[in-house]
């Protein structure tokens, strides 16, 4: 395989997310009669762009809001605030007909291939449905071939497939409507290592062949390294760091990113790395700490009173680098 050519510079990004907010109202205590509780701020002002043909890796732990970002962008859930522009059009302003047309261009591959396929439909039925609805010329056989499945699988039901095969069907279903943009929501985290590598390679091949744009949501920084051009790290509903992939892995400027990287178990017994083990758990997104949301767990030696009171903005460090970090001490990152 030859290396894919560097994507040409584009004027407008394909996907432009601006200040996306999703709050979930908390239930009142006492059967709805009690005092209202603060809402859960699942996504709390997230902005990013993805140029056409590129992959943004969105990384975070459970409860960080990464999955909610993907779902609200496709309007599988309605956002509380913010805007999502797709090819310059405001996705949240579309009526249902325009939205249906747009859904052909934006697709999603789910984490769990077991629960995202209809157990009563054969692979063929699952894949034919979107082709018929949108009146497309594609065939089931061509789709199966594209995702590396033998034609005999067309007659099978999901329970007759292995996890990797099911995920290939999930990808084929997303491809069936010829999208430009696919949200891949933890597409390989339920798979075994050897099969995970197959599916990651398939996603990379499809991207090269169809010029696809991906939002790749994952908790695993190692997996993201093998697919993403840019990486954004989320913590408690906010992006705390965003940079080109090579940058962020070489020099993480947010202490949370640094700790996440050091926590990845390396398959090398000789790897003597400077492991940072964070204390405590992630706080509740209903009551995020004041100031920097990461300050109660932050191991940064320069941590100060300022971190407890003043929210650090996501800013470019150094100026003009394209590397953004939300830390008061991003100029002096942790070693």
């Amino acid at each position: 395989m030859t290396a894919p050519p560097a994507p040409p510079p584009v004027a407008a990004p394909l996907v432009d997310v601006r200040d996306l907010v999703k709050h979930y109202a908390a239930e009142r205590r006492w059967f709805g009669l009690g005092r209202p509780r603060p809402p859960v701020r699942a996504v709390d002002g997230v902005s990013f762009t993805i140029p056409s043909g590129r992959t943004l890796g969105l990384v975070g732990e459970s409860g960080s809001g990464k999955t909610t970002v993907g779902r609200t962008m496709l309007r599988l859930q309605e956002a509380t605030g913010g805007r999502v522009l797709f090819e310059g059009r405001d996705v949240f302003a579309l009526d249902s007909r325009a939205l249906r047309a747009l859904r052909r261009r934006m697709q999603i591959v789910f984490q769990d291939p077991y629960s995202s396929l209809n157990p009563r439909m054969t692979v063929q039925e699952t894949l034919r449905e979107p082709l018929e609805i949108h009146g497309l010329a594609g065939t089931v056989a061509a789709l199966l071939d594209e995702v590396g499945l033998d034609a005999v699988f067309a007659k099978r039901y999901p329970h007759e497939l292995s996890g990797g095969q099911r995920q290939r069907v999930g990808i084929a279903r997303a491809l069936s409507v010829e999208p430009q943009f696919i949200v891949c929501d933890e597409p390989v985290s339920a798979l075994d290592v050897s099969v995970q590598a197959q599916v990651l390679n398939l996603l990379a091949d499809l991207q090269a062949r169809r010029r696809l744009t991906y939002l790749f949501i994952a908790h695993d920084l190692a997996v993201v390294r093998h697919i993403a051009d840019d990486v954004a790290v989320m913590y408690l509903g906010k992006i705390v760091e965003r940079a080109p992939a090579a940058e962020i892995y070489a020099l993480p400027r947010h202490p949370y990113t640094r700790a996440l990287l050091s926590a990845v178990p390396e398959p090398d017994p000789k790897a003597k790395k400077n492991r940072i083990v964070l204390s405590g758990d992630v706080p509740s997104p209903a009551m995020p700490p004041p100031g920097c949301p990461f300050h109660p767990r932050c191991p940064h030696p320069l941590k100060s009173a300022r971190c407890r009171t003043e929210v650090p903005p996501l800013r470019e460090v150094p100026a003009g680098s394209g590397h953004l970090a939300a830390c008061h001490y991003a100029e002096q990152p942790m070693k």
Partner: protein
Amino acid sequence: MTATPAAALLRVRDLKTYFVTEHGRGTARAVDEVSFDLYPGETLGIVGESGCGKTVTSLSILRLVPEPPGHILPGSLIEFEGRNLLALAPPELRSIRGNQIAMIFQEPMTSLNPVFTVGDQIAEAAIIHQRLSRRAARARAIEMLKLVGIPDPEQRVDDYPHQMSGGMRQRVMIAMALICHPKVLIADEPTTALDVTIQAQILELLDRLQHELGMAVLLITHDLGVVAGHTDRVVVMYAGRVVETASTTELFEHPTHPYTEGLLAAVPRVDTPRSRLHAIPGQVPAATAWPTGCRFHPRCPYAWEKCVAQEPPLLDAGGGEGEGGRHTARCWLVTEPERRQAKR
């Protein structure tokens, strides 16, 4: 057997655990002639992908395999301090289970009882096995919560499982397992359900407790990164068989079985730039129909006629580091290494 049997705390020999499948149509040979030793104070990793038999192996040791559909075949041996656990009467087995051999599971939410406080659940084993009074057992439970790093243990002892985070629940599971100071701890994917930063906390805790309490740990995992950082020796399983054993450093430096080699190459790493991953073609076959000959041959890049016809035994792969550190691989390449070179 070059390993000295007297020194081993736990000896597993020719363990066969089979399952009758749903419609009685076949037998799943989930664990098929598995042998290994666990020595005092060491951590032995059992690594493999889903369906390789690693969890059934761990459940078989404490005879927790549901019967039916499962059964451990005659001729299997699981010896703990010289006693065959498979031959013990239920009361004798109970005196070992949870007392001298304890186990923690992958999913801390489903392994804890939601209607009892964590303190009651931790104390239970001490009341049963060590005949402590309720008051003394509660004090021990608080001590254990402190040991596993739960803040405010005097308050948290009265919490119910749903009031705790996933990481805290796994700490509670560890406290439950360790309250009787077992000689062997079986940890079955103890961090798989947890976030990476919490996983790092729990693994560090297990390392510290093993050091302090001097127990032997059998760590069952699919994660080669966890194996690399937290084990002394490794058993690699594939399709119900042990396919390779070695000390951890030896295994990562000289992986010999093509499955181990492929698995190592398939792991995405944070320290290597974006590149194509090595994938092992195909998938793990069904336990009701293992392939003939070497069970890995349909996915193996080196396989030749002999591999299809005849299953290799565990062969000495050299490079061992004395007793217990013998490097073995179930692969004919050991006898014909030039075939590996030819493929490269």
